[in-house]
């Protein structure tokens, strides 16, 4: 069998970028959470806020460090596997990606060290300011990256001369049509990720009776935020979908599993798209609902996959199902956020074990939803890389062979597998040790520029170490 460098490169890119995306999507939400905690600590002087902030800063340090390490690979991927694309789009993408790097540099140089190592060493106000600037910095970084990505979906402000994109209007290119929606969708997704992870970890501590007072505060904060943001995300997602229908109708057709442009289109709950025969099998749907959602009229016309030639269609099955995974998890998140509100009375939200157990499991869902969402938008753009202007095959490195691509694909899977299992394992150790690590701020030898060293947790589980003793025996059965 001939190895296809195109498919292998796409898999490789999907793998490294999905792996990378997990970390920033969490750290962006967490940075803002820490800034809020710092603000509360500064304003009220309540040591519990500071305790929470100190703990989540440690988690942030590990996640940020992993994001940086996996990010180094990203800055070379475009050149190694997609050199024609790099060459063609460098006039726009080069400055965008460089500005992202510069922002990260600036952030790290100026504020990260103060946030991670400066507690009790710099005035409280300065520490708060550093926390806010780190949070702001994460938004600026995502601004550049999402602008670059959105431009690949809805390219504007450029003209193609001799196979190279030249920027004719920076403002149009940066603020391209899909950018505001994608940026809002992603920022809220980051907040939801941060919120559900903090809620899930706090719930776990509460189940074990650890640091009850602080973790109740954290859980309560998260639930208020999720109550507001989970439904908001649904609205933003809807607007984003309408924007996609305007600019990339075929992607919407794939998301809906709609093969022919027509009116009165049902919302499919289940189907097995059959690309070969250009139809669905085992369809179960709600009549007219897709028309209503997408056009706000019961008999509105919804674009179908037949608008383009078969070879210009994206792979429908994976887009269709990724979309359902994302939306399904989103609805589950809304349900939990609402349950949090209903359980407010008498503090049931921190007592009901089924709710706390549920939140524990919910902490993984934002990551799955985010990756599923990216699958929808990225695979839904196929076969285009720059929508309508450059397809994936044209973008590939001409000298790349299947064997080379396979070699590095396996290589990255092995390297990431080893390195990030160690990283995730260590993160779990930090969570396990928890808020009770009392010697915070006494590490005189701490030095800036090394995020992970802000987390003072040994790598191995050690017997007789104090971290288990103050945990009450957990009764895992729900009541």
């Amino acid at each position, binding site marked *: 069998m001939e190895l296809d460098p195109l498919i292998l490169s796409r898999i490789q890119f999907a793998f490294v970028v999905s792996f990378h995306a997990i970390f920033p999507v969490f750290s962006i939400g967490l940075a803002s959470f820490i800034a809020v905690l710092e603000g509360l600590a500064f304003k009220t002087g309540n040591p519990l806020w500071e305790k929470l902030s100190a703990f989540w800063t440690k988690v942030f340090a590990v996640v940020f460090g992993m994001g940086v*390490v996996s990010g180094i690979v990203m800055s070379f991927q475009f050149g190694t596997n997609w050199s024609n694309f790099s060459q063609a789009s460098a006039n726009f993408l080069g400055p965008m990606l460089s500005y992202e790097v510069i922002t990260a540099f600036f952030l790290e140089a100026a504020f990260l060290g103060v946030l991670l190592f400066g507690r009790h060493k710099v005035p409280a106000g300065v520490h708060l300011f550093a926390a806010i600037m780190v949070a702001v910095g994460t938004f600026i970084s995502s601004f550049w990256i999402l602008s670059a990505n959105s431009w690949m979906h809805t390219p504007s402000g450029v003209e193609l001369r001799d196979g190279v994109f030249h920027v004719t209007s920076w403002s149009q290119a940066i603020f391209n049509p899909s950018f505001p929606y994608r940026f809002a969708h992603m920022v809220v997704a980051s907040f939801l990720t941060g919120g559900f992870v903090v809620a899930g970890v706090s719930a776990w501590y509460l189940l074990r009776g650890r640091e009850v007072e602080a973790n109740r505060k954290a859980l309560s904060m998260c639930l208020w935020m999720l109550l507001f943001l989970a439904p908001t995300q649904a609205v933003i997602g809807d607007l984003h979908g309408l924007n996609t229908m305007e600019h990339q109708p075929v992607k919407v057709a794939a998301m809906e599993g709609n093969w022919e442009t027509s009116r009165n289109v049902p919302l499919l709950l289940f189907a097995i798209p059959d690309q070969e025969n250009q139809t669905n099998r085992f369809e179960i749907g709600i009549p007219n609902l897709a028309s209503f959602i997408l056009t706000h009229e019961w008999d509105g016309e919804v674009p179908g996959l037949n608008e383009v030639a078969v070879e210009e269609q994206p792979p429908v099955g994976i887009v269709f199902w990724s979309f359902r995974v994302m939306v399904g998890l989103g609805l589950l998140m809304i349900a939990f956020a609402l349950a949090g509100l209903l359980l407010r009375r008498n503090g049931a939200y921190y007592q009901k074990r089924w709710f706390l157990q549920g939140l524990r499991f919910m902490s993984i869902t934002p990551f799955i939803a985010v990756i599923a969402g990216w699958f929808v938008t990225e695979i839904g753009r196929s076969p285009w890389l720059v929508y309508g202007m450059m397809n994936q095959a044209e973008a590939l490195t001409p000298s790349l062979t299947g064997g080379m691509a396979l070699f590095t694909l396996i290589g990255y899977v092995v390297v990431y597998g080893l390195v990030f299992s160690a990283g995730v394992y260590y993160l779990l150790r930090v969570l396990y040790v928890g808020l009770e690590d009392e010697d915070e701020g006494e590490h005189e030898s701490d030095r800036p520029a*090394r995020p992970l*060293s802000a987390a003072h947790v040994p790598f*191995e589980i050690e017997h007789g170490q104090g971290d288990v003793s103050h945990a009450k025996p957990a009764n895992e059965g729900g009541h």
Partner: protein
Amino acid sequence: MELFNLSLIWAFIIGFGVIMYVLMDGFDLGVGILFPFAPTETDRDTMMNTVAPVWDGNETWLVLGGAGLLAAFPLVYSIILPALYIGVFLMLAGLIFRGVAFEFRFKARTSRYLWNWAFAGGSTLAAFAQGAVVGAYIQGFETTNGAYSGGALDWLTPFTVLTGFGLLAGYALLGSTWLIMKTEGRLQEWAYRITTPLLTAVLVIFAIISVWTPFVDDMVRERWFDHITVIWVLPALTLLCAFQIWRSVRNRFEGMPFVATMGLFITTYLGLIVSRWPYVVPPEYTLWDAASAYESQLFLLLGLLFVIPIVLTYTAWTYWVFRGKVRAGEGYH
């Protein structure tokens, strides 16, 4: 209307970034290369502590170089990365392993030996791959219509293997002279002892490379040998630096060996640049062929002019804060 020739400014910025990276990440990679040979585990702790506060700041120059190259000279980015496809992967894998080892070794107890190996192996792999990249660069790249058209392993030749070992020895020399400056007692004595043999290795390999290079490429030969030019001052300075390293180690100076090694690297680097100037993708493309659009170069330059001074100030401040000797048992635990 183009007020300035931005391509030249950008060539300077990226050239500056590259040598900053080579010097700064060079010594901490060097410490990693020497790591398995250190006398004791305590010395290894100390060695790591000398570079721990600064290493990841050093590596940010590499990321900036990659992104800056895409923005300012996309042709270089889109030809050289495919040409060095396997080598780039090996370098990144090495850097990832050593980066993570840095973090976890300090937190590990029973699994420490694993992180030792990850640190030393990753450093050595990354250094060798970078050296091979330099060799591949001297060799030049086969291109067709602005795209690389050679094979996957064209970069791996006897010549590039030699440059790989050359940089490996060079980084080890930077590492050993750095240790002379930053440590004392037994570890420093060990660093003094290995510096002279390392210098000899570097000089021998550099000499072979210098003799070999003109045969690899005609243009380089013409530039150096057609008539005696002012550029011959560079190898003369390189030799002077080498002599200075030897003399200062003999006299047990502490700072001079490192400074002179940096001098050796800078003069060699300039020698490499003048061999190929103004070609950035030898043998075909000059820096003007490779440049991105004027507006794009300008757009990024504005941000960079603001940020580079801050990064440099911060870097200088970090080095200042962590100046002086690192003693056993200090630093991380």
